[in-house]
């Protein structure tokens, strides 16, 4: 890779990639620095979502049965489908990174497009779930209604609508912020797609694909926790 003479400013075409910034020794160091920056950002995202998960755990503990009843009203099959969609999108993201590493431009473009299609499918299914909740008056607010819904495992007992409303507030907050991250991810991938079509990525320089992928995988990990916590509590009859 680049030795000290190229760092000092002897820009030999075959050694000095145009995307390599002057203060980095080589492409690998530049890539590691960018990855570290993304990871530090993701650490702040862990704390951001962590606060919401913490609120969820406290209320789930306090209003255990009400949360179970409310959770049962959302469609677990759609949630599981969305989990599979995101896992498949994570596979296409690593394949895109691999394609960029190995100079397979057509595969890179294809995988970026498929990833975005998976992302759109996720948002479409999510939107349908929101539509169902609107229809059932399960959206917190003036028209919220959750009367005479039995608490799982406690025959004859009904969920407190005020407590169920807290579940749905957390449901819409957490899935909504997650969906917002998906939309941002789609924006990032649109940009990656444009850059890939322009041929900007090479085995020496594919940092945006790599760290855009890190972001996408992180959003997948958040969903991996949202799915059991929001959809799968108290499912058994």
């Amino acid at each position, binding site marked *: 890779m680049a030795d000290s003479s190229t760092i000092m400013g002897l820009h030999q075409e075959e050694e000095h990639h145009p995307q390599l910034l002057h203060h980095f020794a080589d492409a690998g160091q530049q890539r590691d620095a960018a990855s570290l920056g993304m990871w530090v950002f993701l650490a702040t995202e862990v704390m951001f979502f962590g*606060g919401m998960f913490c609120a969820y755990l406290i209320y789930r503990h306090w209003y255990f049965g009400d949360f179970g009843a409310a959770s049962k009203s959302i469609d677990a099959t759609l949630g599981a489908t969305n989990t599979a969609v995101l896992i498949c999108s994570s*596979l296409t993201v690593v394949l895109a990174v691999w394609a960029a*590493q190995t100079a397979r431009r057509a595969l890179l473009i294809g995988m970026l497009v498929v990833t975005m299609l998976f992302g759109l499918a996720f948002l479409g299914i999510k939107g349908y779930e929101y539509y169902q909740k609107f229809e059932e008056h399960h959206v917190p607010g003036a028209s919220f209604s959750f009367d005479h819904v039995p608490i799982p495992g406690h025959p004859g007992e009904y969920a407190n609508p005020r407590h169920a409303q807290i579940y749905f507030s957390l449901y819409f907050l957490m899935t909504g912020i997650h969906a917002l991250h998906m939309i941002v991810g789609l924006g990032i991938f649109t940009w990656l797609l444009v850059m890939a079509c322009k041929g900007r990525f090479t085995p020496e320089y594919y940092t945006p694909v790599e760290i855009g992928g890190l972001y996408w995988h992180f959003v997948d990990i958040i969903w991996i926790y949202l799915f059991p916590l929001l959809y799968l509590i108290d499912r058994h009859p």
Partner: protein
Amino acid sequence: MTGHASAKSPLKMYFAVWATLLVFTLVTFKVAFIELGPFNAVVALVIATLKATLVALFFMHIWHAGERLIKVAVAAAIFFLFLLLGLTLSDYLTRPWS
């Protein structure tokens, strides 16, 4: 540095991780409908953590990360998350009046 690991292709590993993640998703979905008492939540969270670990280690390349600082950043994120959850819940879950 993942860029220099091109000698052997990681594709087989990527597909194996993907298949494992899908199997875990199916298992967690099916187990949720079986009555296990408090262990339903335990099983669901253990499987979610296994899935998240697989994604982080192999798809996000922590396993092969050349830069140790990246591993430190990940460890710091997990540490502070546990600090947030652990200290908050140790308060809220031990209040006899709630």
